[in-house]
């Protein structure tokens, strides 16, 4: 939506979503959006830049990070001017609080529903500009149309009627989110299923740094539902089964506010060592000492989630939590202007842009800091929109052979409808999620990753023999879930393929068999390309280092 608002200044936009604009998963972001406003303590873009690079374990492209953190204050002010609601300081400025890995209180927030506030503010602007932005809600994007090395549009279908259409466009911007749904325990919405990144991949575009998946330290036990890092930002403790604040052992200085990869590993280590609560797979997030008033002011939604989902009132009892797949640092490679690039040299694919979680700029490197993702979505949403606008103004309208493009998607539908198999898609989906969480999760090693790839490939075979019950056209959500599952099975393979190849530990990717970072061999981005016959090929891309040479990372 941020990109659309940029483009609509001069051109017409079709905004396509498989849900409704206000139901996108950005709305689930709770804790905040980072910017060095310095509203509660002195701060600078330089410090924000260093924190982001260190947090990303030196895999971030530093030229992009620099522009990103410099742009931060202004995009926050723009959001505020649009009407976005922020919590305020006593003198009326945007309030800011502490967050993991940030050395200053830098998270601008709207209680504990910051993503929701931003999403709705942007949606309000989209409604305001309805003359130039036409919204297609509940349309599913199947594939990109690429002709003569130029992106010419997308092939889509109307969930309500099943009708397949081609949207021809001078430029296409993807903001299609992540793929946490490939994991059993995840904060992600059911909609976060890799549709966008796979559409790019299927067009021959590589995926960058796919092995870097962030596991958030505070997912509700068994469900994975997000309990914001803001809970720790406000002073919450993490306690193991012995009642110890175990972060003392792992990050004595920053304690609970170390970056997410470190806290998630610490939790998993405690759990694996049998020091989970009652020896089970969870530890405690303790907020009781904050008091009910503070919780109600700063963390009301979290409290309600605990009450609704597990009948635990965090003002009275600790919350059971465990690491949960949360964010994809990797994605469709773009340059710092939001244009999609297809190789290590930065060659653009004309007419195709991407922003947010589906894209990999890369500003987050090997691990994203909390509150940097909303910022990513807004900064690069704006930039991708601007780039798309500039590009589209100077390019002729496409004339795509629509029937050929439609036929391709219709044949996918027919293929699924015709399958007379006996395999349950539900079983396949559950097995995939289970395999990924246990073999490609917080801790990884060669043996488990090799098994993981084999198992995922066997699931891909079984997937082709699945059993369909709904062969109608009308609001056939089963059909779309099957397509999404197909996307996730491929994505799961790509993640584990890249994870197996990276024989080091860096940020969110931890190899038990290679527990140290190895800058000599692996200080590079990975690019996974599709090859003939459904294979995968790995190439690398250098990391851009400007101001900060890689150094040891301690907290």
């Amino acid at each position: 939506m941020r990109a659309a608002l940029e483009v609509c200044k001069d051109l017409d936009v079709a905004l396509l979503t498989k849900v409704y604009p206000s139901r996108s998963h950005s709305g689930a972001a709770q804790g905040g959006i980072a910017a060095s406003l310095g509203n509660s303590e002195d701060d600078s873009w330089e410090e924000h830049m260093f924190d982001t690079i260190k947090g990303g374990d030196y895999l971030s492209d530093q030229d992009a990070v620099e522009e990103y953190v410099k742009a931060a204050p202004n995009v926050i002010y723009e959001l505020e001017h649009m009407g976005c609601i922020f919590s305020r300081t006593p003198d009326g400025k945007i309030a800011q609080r502490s967050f993991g890995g940030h050395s200053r209180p830098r998270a601008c927030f709207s209680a504990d529903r910051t993503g929701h506030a931003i999403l709705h503010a942007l949606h309000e602007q989209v409604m305001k500009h309805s003359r130039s932005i036409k919204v297609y809600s509940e349309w599913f994007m199947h594939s990109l149309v690429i002709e003569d090395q130029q992106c010419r549009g997308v092939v889509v279908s109307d969930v309500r009627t099943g009708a397949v259409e081609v949207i021809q466009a001078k430029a296409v911007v993807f903001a299609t989110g992540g793929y946490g749904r490939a994991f059993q325990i995840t904060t992600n919405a059911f909609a976060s299923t890799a549709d966008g990144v796979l559409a790019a991949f299927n067009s021959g575009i590589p995926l960058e740094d796919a092995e870097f998946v962030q596991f958030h330290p505070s997912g509700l036990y068994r469900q994975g539902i997000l309990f914001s890092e803001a809970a720790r930002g406000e002073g919450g403790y993490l306690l193991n089964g012995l009642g110890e604040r175990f972060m003392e052992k792992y990050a004595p200085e920053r304690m609970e506010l170390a970056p997410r990869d470190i806290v998630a590993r610490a939790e998993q280590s405690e759990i694996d060592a049998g020091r989970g609560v009652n020896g089970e797979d969870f530890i405690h997030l303790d907020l009781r000492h904050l008091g009910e008033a503070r919780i109600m002011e700063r963390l009301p939604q979290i409290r309600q989630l605990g009450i609704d989902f597990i009948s635990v009132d965090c003002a009275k009892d600790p919350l059971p939590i465990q690491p949960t797949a949360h964010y994809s640092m990797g994605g469709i490679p773009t340059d710092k202007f939001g244009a999609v690039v297809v190789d290590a040299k930065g060659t653009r694919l004309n007419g195709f842009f991407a922003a947010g979680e589906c894209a990999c700029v890369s500003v987050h490197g090997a691990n994203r800091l909390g509150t940097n993702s909303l910022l990513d979505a807004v900064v690069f949403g704006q930039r991708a929109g601007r780039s798309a606008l500039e590009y589209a103004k100077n390019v002729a309208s496409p004339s795509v052979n629509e029937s050929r493009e439609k036929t391709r998607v219709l044949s996918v539908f027919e293929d699924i409808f015709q399958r007379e198999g006996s395999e349950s898609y539900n079983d396949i989906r559950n097995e995939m999620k289970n395999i990924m969480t246990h073999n490609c999760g917080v801790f990884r090693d060669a043996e488990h990753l090799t098994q993981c790839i084999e198992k995922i490939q066997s699931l891909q075979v079984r997937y082709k023999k699945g059993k369909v019950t709904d062969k109608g056209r009308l609001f056939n959500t089963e059909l779309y879930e099957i397509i999404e599952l197909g996307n996730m099975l491929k994505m799961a393979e790509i993640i584990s393929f890249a994870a197996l190849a990276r024989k080091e530990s860096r940020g969110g990717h931890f190899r038990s068999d290679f527990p140290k970072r190895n800058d000599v061999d692996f200080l590079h981005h990975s690019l996974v390309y599709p090859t003939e016959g459904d294979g995968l090929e790995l190439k690398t891309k250098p990391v851009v280092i400007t101001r900060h040479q890689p150094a040891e990372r301690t907290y």
Partner: protein
Amino acid sequence: MATFRIKRYNPEKQPEPYYEDFDLDIPKGATLLDCINLIKWTKDGSLSYRMSCRSAICGSCGMKANGHALLACQRQADSLLDKDGTVTIEPLGNMKPIKDLVVDFKPFWDKVNKVQPYLQTSAEAPVGKERTQSPEQFRLIDDTSTCIMCGNCYSDCNTLEVDDNFLGPAALAKAQRFVCDSRDEKTLERVTELSKPGGIWDCTHCAECVERCPKPAQPFHRIKEIMTVALEEGVHNNNGARHALSFTRSVKASGRLNENQLPVESMGYFNIKGLLELVPVGLRMLLKGKIPPIFHKSIDDVKDVKRIYKELNQ
């Protein structure tokens, strides 16, 4: 074993909706959405409904359980079972069903669009900084900004059931978000527009939307806040405002409602057409012997009532 009695509808197959029972062992701690997913994934893949975040923030999975709208992801399934271990699931109300539990949200969004749901200012925004807003001013729009547009209030709104023209609770709550935003400069224009037929004064105050709202947004409270602003801004030239003011005056003066005066004052003394419309109603009431006493009397302790008004600075 629990029974999920689900209202099914697929016009591709048969024109009439019907109920289908699914038996399911509810896993420990499962939400209603978890159970419906299990039914779809293990029993009948053709069951259609919307869902996404499963943490009560996206607003997709609104549906009716036992006649009342709720978010399926937000409620433990076993808490919804009746004595026989059954829960009845139906699509949201006041919107046209498309298939099974999926309804057409178009009128809902059309009405949200009608309230100009975006900040309107005339002054240029300050360069390189935020507009200020005090924590107190933030609190005036804090609750309303929690709305997730799930449509549960719209579904169970009693006014909408009989009056399609009513904007409905969600759109009005969205309107309050701007009416009470210290940064918005169109307050008077907004409350004038919202005081027209279909707006705030058409709400019947049943507060069903407060019961159904899964968030602190609670539309009816927001509607009352708009009413207060409308009266403060002097937007009195409509039946609703006149009704409220007449009501207040009558109780203040006598401690009880003057039921003869109220309809006349609500219509407005110079609204000849409106007053004529009251005549047949009045005649029917007369014939049935339901005309209130012609001479309006005060209650004995009217002084106490006046003291309450004084306490409230009215």
